[in-house]
């Protein structure tokens, strides 16, 4: 089926070449970081994880969200998702791959990557994260590919796929739960030390992931004419709405716990993020923007009248993605490090090389996504489904 990715319009090739150029630029910048050290990034002794690990966190959510299509389609036999389930699975593959690349570029000694598996350490959440992410990627590529190939041949998929699909459903929850445990299990980091970290992650994932998928589906429809179907769009929008409500609700719970208990450690990060601490307020405008976007999203999503209007839906989804990205892809990881363990406030500003590398990694993800979606859409159009 790979040959489907080799035949495309000039626009398709233009897009692919543009991505390859970004990848090349990112790789060249990565070489700089590789030979100079992570000092070229904005990370510091106090804020030891930055935009790379933030993107890992965000994209794990995007990957996990594939389950929001797989679950209704395979478990509840919701036929409307038949056309786009494959997109969810392939998006998960690209997202997980991007996640792992973000871990890779974040490592100080990437050449020792295999140590994670050579010296398996069951007490380390990062070890488990590496395991669940790899398995989830494999599951999705195998399931997606096999089912698509069977559809193309017009035969039912082989029987062994069924158990894999059932495994992939809890597995999707596991990848984001384990990723939440990366943060939630650390003593002394009050902002992260919360039992609802995993549910919060899942809620934001199930809102943002399908939102991104829908936005991409709209683009696909415009570019290729591949239509996911009105009903599927409506159902997905409904899922996004509820997930976003849960996400905001969970966030308010955190605010309540921190401020009603009045425990200084629990309040500090929130104060830093939304008002600034000890004269440092680099993230304040971003965090308020995030709240604004989330609010816009909710206002446009909750009333069915707005939601059913496709133009408004696109605005809602875009602001939802922006809002959750700032919240999770910026505030959550960086915020956990402020103030530091010795009550000092250091701020984090990503550097230009760091941003170029980030863009490069995203370009790799988009490249894989493009190839996979090209195949999926071509096959779907070929079989007229």
């Amino acid at each position, binding site marked *: 089926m790979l040959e489907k990715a080799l035949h495309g319009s000039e626009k398709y090739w233009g897009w692919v070449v543009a991505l390859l150029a970004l990848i090349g630029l990112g790789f060249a910048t990565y070489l700089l970081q590789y030979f100079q050290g992570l000092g070229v990034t904005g*990370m510091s002794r106090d804020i030891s994880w930055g935009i790379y690990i933030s993107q890992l966190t965000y994209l794990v959510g995007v990957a996990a969200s594939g389950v929001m299509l797989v679950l209704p389609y395979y478990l509840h036999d919701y036929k409307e998702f038949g056309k786009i389930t494959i997109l969810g699975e392939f998006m998960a593959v690209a997202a997980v791959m991007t996640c792992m690349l973000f871990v890779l570029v974040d490592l*100080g000694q990437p050449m020792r990557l295999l*140590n994670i598996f*050579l*010296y398996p*350490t069951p007490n380390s959440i990062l070890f488990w994260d590496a395991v669940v992410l790899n398995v989830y990627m494999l599951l999705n590529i195998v399931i997606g590919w096999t089912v698509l190939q069977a559809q193309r041949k017009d035969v039912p998929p082989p029987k062994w796929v069924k158990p894999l699909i059932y495994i992939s459903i809890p597995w999707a929850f596991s990848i984001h739960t384990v990723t939440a445990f990366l943060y939630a299990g650390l003593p002394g980091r009050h902002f992260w030390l919360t039992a609802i970290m995993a549910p919060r992650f899942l809620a934001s994932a199930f809102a943002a992931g399908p939102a991104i998928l829908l936005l991409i589906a709209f683009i696909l429809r415009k570019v290729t004419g591949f239509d996911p179907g009105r009903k599927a769009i409506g159902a997905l929008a409904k899922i996004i709405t509820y997930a976003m409500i849960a996400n905001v609700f969970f966030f308010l719970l955190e605010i309540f716990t921190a401020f009603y208990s009045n425990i200084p450690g629990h309040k500090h990060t929130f104060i830093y993020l939304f008002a600034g601490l000890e004269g440092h307020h680099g993230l304040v405008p971003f965090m308020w923007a995030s709240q604004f976007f989330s609010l816009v999203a909710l206002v446009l999503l909750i009333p069915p009248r707005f939601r059913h209007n496709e133009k408004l839906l696109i605005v809602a989804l875009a602001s939802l993605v922006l809002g959750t990205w700032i919240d999770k892809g910026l505030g959550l990881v960086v915020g956990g490090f402020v103030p530091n363990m010795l009550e000092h406030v250091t701020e984090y500003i990503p550097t230009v090389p760091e941003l170029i590398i980030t863009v490069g990694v995203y370009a790799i993800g988009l490249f894989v996504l493009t190839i996979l979606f090209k195949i999926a859409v071509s096959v779907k159009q070929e079989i007229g489904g």
Partner: protein
Amino acid sequence: MDSTRRSFLKILGVTAAGLTVRPSADAWALGAKPRGAAPLDNALVGKRWAMVIDLQKLTDKVRKDAVEACNRAHNIPHYENHDDEIKWIWEEGYHNAFPGQHNHHLPVELTRDPLLVLCNHCENPPCVRVCPTKATFQREDGIVMMDYHRCIGCRFCMAGCPYGSRSFNFWDPRKQPPLVNEKGEFDPPSPDYPTRMRGVVEKCNFCAERLAKGKLPACVEASNGALLFGDLADHESEVAKALRSRYSIRRKPDLGTEPQVYYLI
């Protein structure tokens, strides 16, 4: 199968007959464990190493000397930029070191001067728990060690340490002063300890390399008695006696990490 191939294989088959192979054992060398591996003769051996810092004896000179001794002993680079700093033992204000213990009306002497903080060599170290490669691990005698050979530089331990005791080599330490002298040559202060490579995490190791040769930690040696070091499992040790005789506090005891660095009030 054509005739060339058949005859070729036949020749090989005939040659194989009647021949056996006997590997020469000595050439394989090097078994699983290095031969006769043992501690050095004069090594200091303990069951639960701990440090006691006497805040009353902690003068400005003692603090500076201790930090300087450590930096020299371990070839620690000096960075002007706060973000890149490598710190094993360093000065920190009372309120920063003990953020949970903000009593009002504390004795001025206690809170006025900075004190020394370093890795606590916790009994339940969170950094060891989170490390995905066992690059940081706890020895039987309680020292929390770093294996620079194995560290992948993921910095999970830095997020996990509740005391901010860990530093990351954001740059190549060999290109920083004082490891590089005024002439731009690599000129490390200590020949007894390697430098690190960029991209690994490092921290205080209770001078494991000195203990192995029967010496006390460098900071203790330089502290003029303000820093005590010994085996808490031994009731007659200096540290055990000191803790029995005076009131002491530890950093963030509520986290359950059981720090092994005690501060005598």
